[in-house]
């Protein structure tokens, strides 16, 4: 390399490359991101569980519907709404024994099969 090249190289070396941006605290940032992700997952799971539990407790089922007590008021309302006494009785039995009573069986037949404990 001749003298001109060496001088030019010295001149070029007087320029200093710019420093890169500061190194981010990668490890700390990654740990924080991981913790946030875990927290988000836990919150999502808890929320889902709460929603399922709330839905389950509110949703009426055949079994808990049959536990509703028959009051005089409810019976009167049923009799007013139904076209006949037989129809009212049929509806009452259908509500309480929806699964076990065949459609062809009348309410009186179904009631006669029930055992009444003294």
């Amino acid at each position: 390399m001749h003298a001109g090249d060496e001088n030019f190289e010295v001149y070029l070396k007087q320029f200093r490359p710019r420093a890169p941006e500061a190194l981010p605290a990668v490890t700390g940032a990654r740990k924080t991101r991981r913790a946030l992700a875990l927290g988000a997952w836990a919150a999502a799971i808890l929320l889902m569980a709460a929603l399922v539990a709330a839905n389950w407790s509110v949703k009426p089922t055949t079994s808990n519907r049959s536990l509703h007590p028959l009051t005089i008021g409810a019976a009167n309302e049923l009799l007013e709404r139904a076209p006949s006494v037989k129809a009212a009785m049929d509806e009452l039995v259908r509500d309480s024994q929806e699964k076990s009573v065949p459609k062809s069986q009348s309410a009186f037949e179904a009631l006669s099969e029930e055992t009444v404990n003294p």
Partner: protein
Amino acid sequence: MHSNGSEIEELYQRHGPALLLFAIAMTGERSSAQDAVQQIFARLLERGLGDVVDVKAYLYRCVRNAVLNEAKAQLRNVALDEDTPWFDVLNRDASEELSLRRALRALPSEQRQVVVLRVWCGLTHAEIAALLEISANTVASRYRYALEKLREAMGVREDFCADACG
């Protein structure tokens, strides 16, 4: 070896600027070069250097591989960044920096890489040859051509004296 955070930070302070300039010489722009260099050091902060013997050569190889992988992944020709300075202009005229940057950008990538590694990264011809996987003779000829083109592009005469211009 260098495995704790403060030692990696020290390496970043010492080699970061030259590594970044080398990455810029490869990519042609600062942003993806910065990403490549930071990616290397972020990994080093997590895993350490292990049993690396020649740390400097290792860092340059990592940066080169990161840039090449990124280029393959993105399958794109990066547009050269016109505006961001590559060199500090604190003690120099900004127009000189611009002139040098333009001259470097005008070089073919392989010549630009060689001249950057030789002048600003302080690697020998043998180290550059090993890094770029080319012969030392190829390094020498690329370097000679690159200097000629830079001098011409910057309007510097051959009997130029560095002290007078510094």
